[in-house]
């Protein structure tokens, strides 16, 4: 029987949830608002919230100065490409570790995670030199490879925890009924793991989309994604907040929309296995 929740409690919880939600969303809202201000209004003190002269001149300026479409496609290719490549490698390895663990499985998992503990700048020069010698600097392939490697530990870990939640008995039962390995994977495991795989996919696309260290350092122009597009609007001398906000809004809009439409899947995946 469900617990009875009083109206008062409901109201309080709703208020808290909304406050927290708005608090977290506020920086993004402020960025969007600033992108419609003039540079003068953007630095006004005290800051103006809604009652300013709305203008789209920042967007026009950004459009005329940068090749947004090129940066956008580079971001799409590198985030989707690296995630798919990562899944291709991570699914079999997570599968193996979840269903036939050995004595060293836990160590291997820890070791994988430990690679995330080093500050990336520590590996910049060696990676840069390797990329230079292989001709991968400023190439989309190079970015896909490096982002795959960076996010691989997270993909493996996420998939491993999802697969762990699937009871081995179900697989055994399928085997008892005479299912081959292929059938077992396609008809039994995959449908059960889909929410997990989907949320891993989405989360990694978002992580790759927002990656700003490697993408800034390994690209110059041809393969430069939206992160470099944003970086080009920051200035040490001169006002740039409104234009920078317009560029940021244009850069986060696609991923925000993707997140909006897939939030159900994302939440389901992230809480998958938490409640039985």
């Amino acid at each position: 029987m469900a617990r009875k929740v009083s109206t008062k409690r409901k109201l309080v919880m709703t208020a808290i949830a909304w406050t927290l939600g708005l608090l977290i969303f506020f920086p993004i809202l402020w960025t969007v608002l600033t992108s419609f201000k003039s540079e003068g209004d953007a630095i006004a003190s005290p800051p103006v919230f809604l009652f300013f002269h709305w203008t789209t001149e920042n967007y026009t300026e950004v459009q005329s100065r940068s090749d947004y479409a090129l940066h956008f496609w580079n971001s799409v290719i590198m985030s989707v490409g690296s995630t798919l490549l990562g899944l291709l490698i991570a699914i079999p390895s997570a599968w193996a570790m979840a269903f036939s663990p050995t004595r060293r499985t836990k160590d291997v998992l820890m070791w994988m995670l430990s690679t995330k503990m080093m500050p990336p700048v520590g590996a910049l020069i060696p990676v840069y030199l390797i990329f230079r010698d292989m001709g991968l600097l400023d190439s989309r392939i190079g970015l896909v490879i490096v982002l795959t490697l960076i996010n691989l530990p997270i993909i493996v870990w996420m998939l491993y925890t999802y697969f762990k939640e699937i009871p081995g008995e179900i697989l055994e039962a399928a085997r008892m009924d005479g299912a081959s390995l292929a059938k077992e994977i396609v008809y039994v495991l995959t449908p059960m793991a889909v929410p997990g795989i989907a949320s891993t996919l989405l989360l990694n696309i978002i992580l790759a989309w927002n990656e700003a260290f490697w993408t800034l350092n390994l690209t110059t122009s041809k393969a430069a994604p939206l992160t470099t597009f944003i970086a080009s609007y920051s200035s040490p001398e001169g006002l740039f907040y409104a234009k920078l906000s317009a560029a940021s809004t244009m850069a986060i809009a696609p991923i925000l929309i993707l997140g909006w439409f897939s939030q159900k899947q994302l939440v389901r995946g992230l809480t998958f296995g938490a409640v039985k």
Partner: protein
Amino acid sequence: MTLKTILLGAVSALALSGIASAETLTIATVNNGDMIRMQKLTDDFKAKNPGIDLQWVTLEENVLRQRVTTDIATKSGQYDIMTIGIYETPIWGKQGWLAPLDKLTSDAKYDANDLLPPIRSGLTVDGKLYAAPFYGESSMVMYRKDLFDKAGLKMPEKPTWDFIADAARKITDKGSETYGICLRGKAGWGENMAFLTATANSFGARWFDENWKPQFDQPEWKNTLDFYVKLMKDAGPPGASSNGFNENLALFQTGKCGMWIDATVAASFVTNPKESKVADQVGFALAPDNGLGKRGNWLWSWNLAIPAGSKKVEAAEKFIAWATSKDYLNLVAEKDGWANVPPGTRTSLYQNPEYQKAASFAKMTIDSINSADPKHPTVKPVPYEGVQYVAIPEFQGIGTAVGQQFSAALAGQVSVDQALKNAQQLTEREMAKAGYPKK
């Protein structure tokens, strides 16, 4: 089809592909107004130089510095032309990382002798020019005429630090959020240390003595830092330890500062009525001095250089000659007016009556630039070059670490004495590690 037709077709296809594969120059630059304007005017260059295409990579200053340094140190060849500061140029030139611009210096039409002497000297190593200046700047005092009138003060053309401090305290009215003076406080070798090193020069301080011994334990530095911290406490805005150029620009433009001592390039922003609320009330004066013969102004320029070993030197030279020529200044004047011409590179610009008329800050800029001497920055002799920096590779790290100490002193987290002691210790340690004094 006869053999002749096939051959003809093949030859014309080759010819076409030859035309299509124009040489592309990748240019790394900073996001400053003058550079953005240059990007918009490149059609003029392309029309004069068919076959050369331009690809711009615009980055924020710190990101640019990191990217360009990695690229040139690893000889990756990602950029054909780099925008670099007057700080890097002599260091990289000595390292053999840059291609000397001999063609420009020997070209009579380019007229390298017209380049402003302090800037040309800062970009020259062993008689060779390693980068061509695109725009140059110094620092000066910007002040509010209305607030000065109200307080019954008159800004001299060449103020002293005592006058500035006195005026700042008189103007300050914290109740109405009017602060007498806004100065940089944000830690960084190019942020607060640019201002403080230049100021220290006018107090007679120096970074190192002739034997490369750090000098933060000397009274001149204590006087500088004491003066700065006390003045900012009495007459500065709250939270000044996180203010850099842009934060102070915002404060000044919204009418919160009586004075602001910073880059001459700010003059065009604060007098622009579209951005600044105080545009018609701004006056200018030279950076202050202490009667010791040196003013507290710096010298900076952004320059275009070609990495050594580049395969496109010839095309790159053509571009640099175009972007830093007298003709380019005329082109900007024709399109956007004389006030928007990149300042601080050529003597002839300051002799041009039209420019003098359009840019009210022209005289102040040229006087400030010409009074900065990178080879003799301060009162006592020094073993280094550079007015607001020390032109050695280690300076970026040391300068920023010292800047953090001084920023903490401004915020009141440590005392002035402690900050100087820490600065002395860390500079001694880093310099010993770097092997100074070098023979």
